[in-house]
């Protein structure tokens, strides 16, 4: 044991000495490895909470998300209606408990320091389901959910500190929420966040439970009983859903249940992107290893004599490989430490490139798992780059090397072939990354070229949510929004103002089944579905959506006038191809729930608008005037003629304070940002792939230059002989360039094959770009050839200048 320890220490000492004597080599290796480890570790830090870190709840593996779907109408992910949730909770056999949550905007404080905060409406069972409880005070109970029960609220630790200065006596005090007195019953623990950075949680109280069927407004979660699998839960909940369908066919025909891991429910599709980005970062790390392998190999060739001597005095080949590994471990350890330090900075940088608000419960810090990854990556890189020199040792011809009086033989064909293979691998991987970046760039260009059907430039948007306990009549709501619109219109520079229940491309929206008068009725589960939006007069002008036919909504379209609607071109094409839709009537809503108010007459046709995504085919859209179906929330669009659209917000807040100081203005955003955010995933992948492929290109080019320089040095004598025999300098240059380009071309061919594989993995993030994207491929190959030629040129130029006499004297 002591001998082993002493030998290891001596190995370490010697390795440090060897590396210190070659500072250029050591620094180059450390920097390249650190860059690779930094990129991979920072990506791991980012994907860690998305893929690996357990959710911050008790027994997180038993938590699942429960949603509804309507597969026959291609609605795969609906939220959960309150009535269905209650049935599921009562009738299931697989969950120890279930809970629901829905986000709202609340104003706390009333006239006493009013403060707009995020709020959640929850079931009393939510926190027990998650396994969390208030840090002070009590949790909700079933009585709090009953109609007529005293209004209660649980507040966040943050609000408790900021509003009450951390006073424990706050329990039992009254807090005004949206104009209604609520008794504070609890304070959640510090940093507790779930779904959003909420400050108040209020139990959801339904006065007409059955009326909530078909209104998919909650996110549902369940805690599996011990030993129950997700598959069993799915089967059980499907049986419950089928029973509800039989009992309530008018609202639940074709409505199913979906049980998914909670992480999947919370993260909604970011996991595929996470794996792609982590994979790409790891490829860059491997590229760094391949490059360092190349450097180690050149150095090992120069150290062949040393290895031969060690073998001659009785070292086994493993003992020499161990010495190389020790040197590798030292470099990896230094690079790993630098990489981890750098990754904290790189993680922050990568997160700033995200175009949307990151959920607050996602914490991107360096934990034991990230450190473990970095250490694992360092060890792996060490093994990877030490393999090539180990291979050199394995094939060492001791006898020949020891006869040579120089520092070591030139390396020979075997080593040249291995270096060539390393360069080919580098070129192939770098080209695949570069081509992928090209495809993402092409995708971004395609997104930007899509006409969304409206003009996002010069358009400011924000959301207005009226307090839930006031503005109870439709007339009050219509008056409020009309006043707001008129006051906004009177601001200088404002060209048009309008509101809609949910702006295009903001990720929300609703749909309704419908039937066109005169067409044969369809079974309910196959009924047509349309995108359903409530808009105020002025909306289409503000958005600059083209009116194709008829007219837009007017203030006169109200509850006392004929029920009217507007449709988009897709709707018109589907039902009125070649005919005039103006004046035709539509019935919207579930077949069993049609009232006269839901029979509307088409008064106008507007251009199609991209509602769900620039890359998605939308359903036909039905617009209803807000004055005929009023909701409490409107998303406003303000068209600004001149100046910065963002400047509108200050004026809008002032106007809002004058109309009703308790009404909050939230989510102020320019429409162009909403459009950009709609393809944020592709945009984000492009940004990071741009960085990755830039680094990969740099590594590949330095690898090519390194191997060419090495080959040129090894062939100095040969070049001298050739020149002595009459070769002209440009013959030599051509020879060296051809040698380098041959490797590059083989690498490019393999890289193209790898590009197809990459493109298949990326396919869900590509838009109007196939897996064989000629533009990206040709662009990447041309770029690569240009830089490869440049990197071969320097060694080739040096070869041209070799003095034959000097070369022939050098052995």
């Amino acid at each position, binding site marked *: 044991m002591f001998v082993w320890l002493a030998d290891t220490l001596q190995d370490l000492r010697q390795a440090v000495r060897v590396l210190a004597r070659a500072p250029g080599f050591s620094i180059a290796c450390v920097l390249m490895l650190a860059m690779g480890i930094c990129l991979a570790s920072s990506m791991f830090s980012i994907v860690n909470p998305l893929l690996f870190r357990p959710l911050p709840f008790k027994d997180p593996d038993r938590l699942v998300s429960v949603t509804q779907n309507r597969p026959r109408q291609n609605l795969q992910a609906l939220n959960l209606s309150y009535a269905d949730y209650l049935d599921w909770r009562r009738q299931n056999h697989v969950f120890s408990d279930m809970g629901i949550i829905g986000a709202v905007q609340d104003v706390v404080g009333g006239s006493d320091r009013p403060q707009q905060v995020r709020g959640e409406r929850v079931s009393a069972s939510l926190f027990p389901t998650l396994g969390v409880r208030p840090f002070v005070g009590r949790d909700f109970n079933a009585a709090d959910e009953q109609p007529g029960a005293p209004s209660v609220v649980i507040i966040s630790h943050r609000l408790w500190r900021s509003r009450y200065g951390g006073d424990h006596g706050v329990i039992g005090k009254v807090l005004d929420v949206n104009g209604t007195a609520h008794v504070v019953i609890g304070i959640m623990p510090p940093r507790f966040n779930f779904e959003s950075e909420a400050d108040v949680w209020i139990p959801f109280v339904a006065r007409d439970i059955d009326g909530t069927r078909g209104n998919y407004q909650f996110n549902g979660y369940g805690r599996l009983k011990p030993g129950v699998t997700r598959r069993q839960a799915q089967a059980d909940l499907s049986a419950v859903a089928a029973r509800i369908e039989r009992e309530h066919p008018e609202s639940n025909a074709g409505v199913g249940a979906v049980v998914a891991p909670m992480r999947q429910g919370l993260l909604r599709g970011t996991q595929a992107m996470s794996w792609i980005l982590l994979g790409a970062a790891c490829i860059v790390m491997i590229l760094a290893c391949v490059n360092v392998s190349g450097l180690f190999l050149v150095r090992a060739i120069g150290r062949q004599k040393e290895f031969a001597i060690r073998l001659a005095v*009785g070292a086994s*080949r493993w003992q020499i490989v161990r010495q190389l590994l020790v040197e590798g471990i030292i470099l990896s350890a230094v690079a790993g430490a630098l990489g981890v330090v750098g990754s904290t900075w790189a993680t922050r940088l990568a997160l700033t490139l995200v175009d949307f608000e990151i959920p607050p419960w996602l914490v991107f810090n360096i934990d034991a798992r990230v450190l473990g990854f970095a250490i694992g990556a360092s060890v792996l890189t060490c093994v990877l780059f030490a393999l090539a020199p180990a291979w050199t040792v394995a094939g060492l011809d001791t006898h020949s090397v*020891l006869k040579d009086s120089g520092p070591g033989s030139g390396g020979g064909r075997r080593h040249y072939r291995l270096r060539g293979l390393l360069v080919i691998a580098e070129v192939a991987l770098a080209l695949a990354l570069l081509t992928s970046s090209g495809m993402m760039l092409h995708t971004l260009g395609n997104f930007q070229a899509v006409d969304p059907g409206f003009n996002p430039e010069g358009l400011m948007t924000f959301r207005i949510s009226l307090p839930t306990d006031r503005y109870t009549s439709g007339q009050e709501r219509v008056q409020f929004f009309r006043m707001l619109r008129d006051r906004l219109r009177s601001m200088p520079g404002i060209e048009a103002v309008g509101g809609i229940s949910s702006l295009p491309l903001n990720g929300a929206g609703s749909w309704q089944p419908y039937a066109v008068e005169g067409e044969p009725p369809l079974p309910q589960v196959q009924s047509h579905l349309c995108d359903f939006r409530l808009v105020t007069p002025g909306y289409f002008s503000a958005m600059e959506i083209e009116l194709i036919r008829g007219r837009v909504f007017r203030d006169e379209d109200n509850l006392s006038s004929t029920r009217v609607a507007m449709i988009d071109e897709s709707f018109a094409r589907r039902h009125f191809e070649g005919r005039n839709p103006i004046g035709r009537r539509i019935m919207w809503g579930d077949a069993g729930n049609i009232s006269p108010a839901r029979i509307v007459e088409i008064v106008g046709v507007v251009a199609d608008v991209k509602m769900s995504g620039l890359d998605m085919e939308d359903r036909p859209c039905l617009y209803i005037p807000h004055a005929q179906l009023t909701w409490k929330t409107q998303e406003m669009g303000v068209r600004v003629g001149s100046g910065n659209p963002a400047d509108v917000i200050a004026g809008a807040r002032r106007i809002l304070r004058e109309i009703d100081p308790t009404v909050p203005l939230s989510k102020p955003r320019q429409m162009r940002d909403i459009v950009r955010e709609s393809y944020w995933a592709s945009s984000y992948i492009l940004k990071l792939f741009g960085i990755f492929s830039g680094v990969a290109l740099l590594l590949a080019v330095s690898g090519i230059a390194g191997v060419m320089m090495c080959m040129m040095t090894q062939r100095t004598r040969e070049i001298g002989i050739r020149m002595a025999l009459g070769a002209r300098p440009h013959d030599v240059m051509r020879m060296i360039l051809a040698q380098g380009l041959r490797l590059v071309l083989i690498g490019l061919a393999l890289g193209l094959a790898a590009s197809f594989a990459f493109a298949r993995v990326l396919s869900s993030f590509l838009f109007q770009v196939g897996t064989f994207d000629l533009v990206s491929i040709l662009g990447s190959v041309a770029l690569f050839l240009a830089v490869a030629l440049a990197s071969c040129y320097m060694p080739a130029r040096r070869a041209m200048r070799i003095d034959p006499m000097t070369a022939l004297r050098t052995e």
Partner: protein
Amino acid sequence: MNEPLICLQRIQKIFRTEEIETHALTSINLDIRQGEFVSIDGPSGCGKSTLLSIIGLLDTATGGNYLLKGENVTDFSHEQRAQLRNREIGFIFQSFNLIGDLTVYENVELPLRYRKLSVPERKQRVAEVLEKVSMGHRRNHYPAQLSGGQQQRVAVARALVGSPSLLLADEPTGNLDSRNSEAVMTLLQNLHREGTTICMVTHDQRYARAAGRIVYLFDGVIVDESEFAAATAGESEPASR
């Protein structure tokens, strides 16, 4: 007569390329007994170094048998040959072959490290052998800080430190001036007198005669052998057989 330390039976070494076969050694039969000082002589390219490499287990024969201390080592694996080399054979090279990144002490200690001897034992043996070659005062120097003669003395010390059965010297004076050559040869002769078995390749007739026996090689074949009554350079007449 006792069993030979080295027994080569019909040893062959053929180098093959895609088109040409080169017979470096042809049917070499050679015995070296314990305590002998054998010199291998012959013109350049006759196979002297190849023969020494095969004896030193750095290279393998393509035919014949090699017995070391009576054990057939012809088909030993890399690992077995490394162990045997470490235990039984010490090398001295023309170009010294010291490792530039290691100190004198570490260079000499190297065979003992690979033998996994304890640290105190290593220290003692390295100190003894460095004193033997008068290099104890230079133990912390690096090879580049030494003269050629000093480097070769360190190489001799490294060859001796493991107390090998056989010392192989490949042109040990080839890179030295005459004064340092004399010193190294004197050192080898002293070692021989103390009982060390030495096999040396040399071009230099003066130093070849320091051996008790000269084996002449020509085109890979042993063509002649001479034995001397006394093993001191220039003191005896050769007796051919």
